[in-house]
Structures are given as structure tokens and as C-alpha cells.
């Protein structure tokens, strides 16, 4: 378990792709530099989408947690 405290959580469980990634992008857009956004997604595609986008945009994917029925992604805004 990560002990990171997110500044914001986006719950995109149940959303089809590209919903979760777009929800994350929206939250990062309004976050301040250094803030951590946590994305909850049960879409498998997010496992590749989120790291790829984080790298492209220069934000840091700090942790990925695997839970019973979804993943949690912690992304820090650059």
C-alpha cells in the first residue's frame, strides 16, 4: 500500500476507454504543479494509457496500486 496522500481523487470506475484517461487529464489540467491526482479505474486499458500519457506530458506516475476490482494510479503534476 502506498501512503501517498492525493490532493484529488477521480473515480472513473465503470467508464469505458478513453474516459478514465480523459478524466485524469482533466484533473491534472486544473491541479497545481506538485499536486498528486489519484485515478480509480477498472478499465484494463488504463494500465498502458496512463503511464504512456504521464510520460508524454512529463508528469510523474508515482505509484500504481492493484486492488480487488480496480487499479489506483497516483500521478504528480510536473
Amino acid at each position: 500500500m502506498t501512503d501517498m496522500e492525493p490532493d484529488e481523487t477521480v473515480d472513473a470506475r465503470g467508464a469505458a476507454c478513453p474516459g478514465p484517461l480523459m478524466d485524469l487529464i482533466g484533473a491534472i489540467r486544473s491541479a497545481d504543479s506538485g499536486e498528486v491526482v489519484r485515478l480509480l479505474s477498472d478499465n484494463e486499458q488504463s494500465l498502458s494509457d496512463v503511464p504512456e500519457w504521464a510520460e508524454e506530458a512529463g508528469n510523474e506516475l508515482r505509484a500504481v496500486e492493484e486492488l480487488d476490482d480496480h487499479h489506483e494510479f497516483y500521478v504528480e503534476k510536473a
Partner: protein
Amino acid sequence: MTEHVVIVGGGTGGSVLANDLADRLEPELDAGDVRITLINDDADHVYKPVWLYVPFGQREPDDGRRPLEDLVDDRVDIRIDRVTEIDTDAERLESMEGDDTIEYDHLVLATGSTLVPEEIPGLADGGHDYYSESGAVDLRDELLSLTEGRLVLSVVGTPHMCPAAPLEFVFMADDWLRERGLREDVEITYTYPIQRVHGNPHIAEWARPIMEERDIDVETFFNAESVDPEAETITSMEGTELDYDLLVTIPPHAGVDLIEEAGLGDDGWVDVDKHTLEAEAAENVYALGDTADTGVPNAGSVAHYQAGVVGQRLASEIRGRPATATYDGKTLCFIETGMDAASFVEFDYETPPAPAPPSEKLHWSKLAYNEAYWLTARGLL
């Protein structure tokens, strides 16, 4: 006691539903057991797909307008008014005109999408769009005077109305400029927020090679952060900057504020059960069309199918029977691939889309549908 069904929004979903219910509940309406009110903030019904053709000089904005009075069944009370507040506990609405409170027994929200270009600094000044009537008219002037330089089409956010429309615009622009002998002098660039050219992987796979073949440059992972109207540049969150001579964008979308204020969902989209279309947060409230957050595209065909489902469910509820009709995610879209060819896709929650090979016949089918739309809105098709 008379049961009152109130529909907010007289666009595609709201109008089809009003006509569907008038037909279905004819005996109850005649007996005075049911009353249907349709509230819309414009006396006209607006058919938005016409706007795609306006910049190319192929349609006039008026082709997309008809008075609601002419389209909606006489047994439905039409109220031209803007709803300003929803109280789902007390089951009533406040509105702008008149000082009466509107009480409902069954509420359907079909308020559609609004554009929020102000979310991106500089976008309202630097960008053009064909997602509003005035935008489409302004863009027509700009497009007509573009003889060289760089045309950038940027999809700023999703969800947005008609996910096919950005592809259609660049395919049509490419063909239109070729026909006018200007294509060699105008570069076209298409940007999309994720790593593909379309949200749906099947449609993206189909569209990408067509773009390559037609020399349409592509920038993926491009989330517009700001536009500089003076310097004529658009910059992404990912750090890419593009110069433009004409910037056409699909601006960020939102639903209407009163939905969030009523606690029915974020950003103006109503959280619903994606099969029954019932609001998650309140009793006796349905949402359909763009405003219902189901994950399917914001398309008129979706609003149309969903109206049929809500119509059946409401009729059952009013008659004291269990409501059994459900929405399966069905979506139909024609996709223009040029000025005289189009493709077609059909899909649902279970079945992915498989775009049909573009043909002239499908293009004419799309144009024929645009004409026949007025019969759809009336509930005849």
C-alpha cells in the same frame, strides 16, 4: 389525480420523447389522467448536424431550425422557458419566466451539451468552431478566405457531441480544398487528446490510414492548454506548439449547471443506470441524450433510441406495471469521408463498431437522413 410528466429540453431526445409519449399515452391524455409538458429555452428545435455543412457553403443555419410547435404533438404543452433550479426532494422546478413553480411526478432531463471554450485561455478569441450556429457561420467566412497556410483542427476535450464530426471535418476540408485546387497550398493538421486519432480504437484504426493517404498531419496526445491569438499558436499540456492560420476546435463541453447544483452528477451530466436511464441520485428522474452519462457517444441517434426506452418505461410506470424496456448502448453514425463519400458504423455496449467502406451511396444516405430527420423528431420514423 393527473400525473404530470415534465421533459426539460426540446432537442432531439426531448422532442422524440414528447411525441412518443403523446402517442403511447393517448387514452390517458384524452381522459385527463396524464399531462405532458415540454420545456425548452428556444421556440425553435435545432438540428445540430446541419452545422457541419455550413462552413462548406452547403447548408444554411435555418435548414437546421423548425418551430417546436410544428414538430411536437398538440397534446403536449410546450413551454418556452429556461429551467433554473431542480428540487428532486420536493419534485419541483423553478424557471426564468413566470413566477409559478412547476411540479412534476416524472421528470426527464434532456438538456444536452453546452460549449465552454473559456476553459482554455485564448480559445474563444483564437479558435473557430462548427459546434454552434454562430460558430459555423463565422467559420464559413474564414474558410472561404483561406487560400494558403495551415489549417489546424484540434479536438480539445472529450466527451463532445458527435465523436465522428472532427474526422468528418478534416476529410471534407481535404476534399473541398482539392476540388478548389488549393490543397497543395494548405496544410491540414488534426490533433487528438489521446494516443489515437479517435476515442474508439476500431474507428481510430480505420481513420488513421485514410489520414496518411490524404496527407493530413496528425498530432496525438495533444491536450490544448492555451491559444495565443496574436502569435497564432496553440500549445498543448504535453509541450507541443503548433502554428496555425486557421484554427478550428471542438471546444470543451459541459452539461448545464443546474444538474450539478441539484446533486445529479458532475459537470452537468446526470449519473444514470446505463440500461434503465434512471438517475442514480433521485427518484422519478430520467436523463437521456447527451446529458445522460452512459459512456456511449453524444449522438442524436443515441438520444433517439434512449427516448424510445424512456417512453416505454414511463408508460409502464404510469399504468402501474413494471418497466422492462432497457437501453443496450445502440449507436448509429454516418461518417462523411469527403464531399461525396461517407462510411457508416453501428455498435452497442457489447458489439464494437466496424466502419463500412466509404461510398457515394452512404453519403447520399446521410444527406437523406438529414432531410428525413424532421420525421424522426415528429415521431414518425
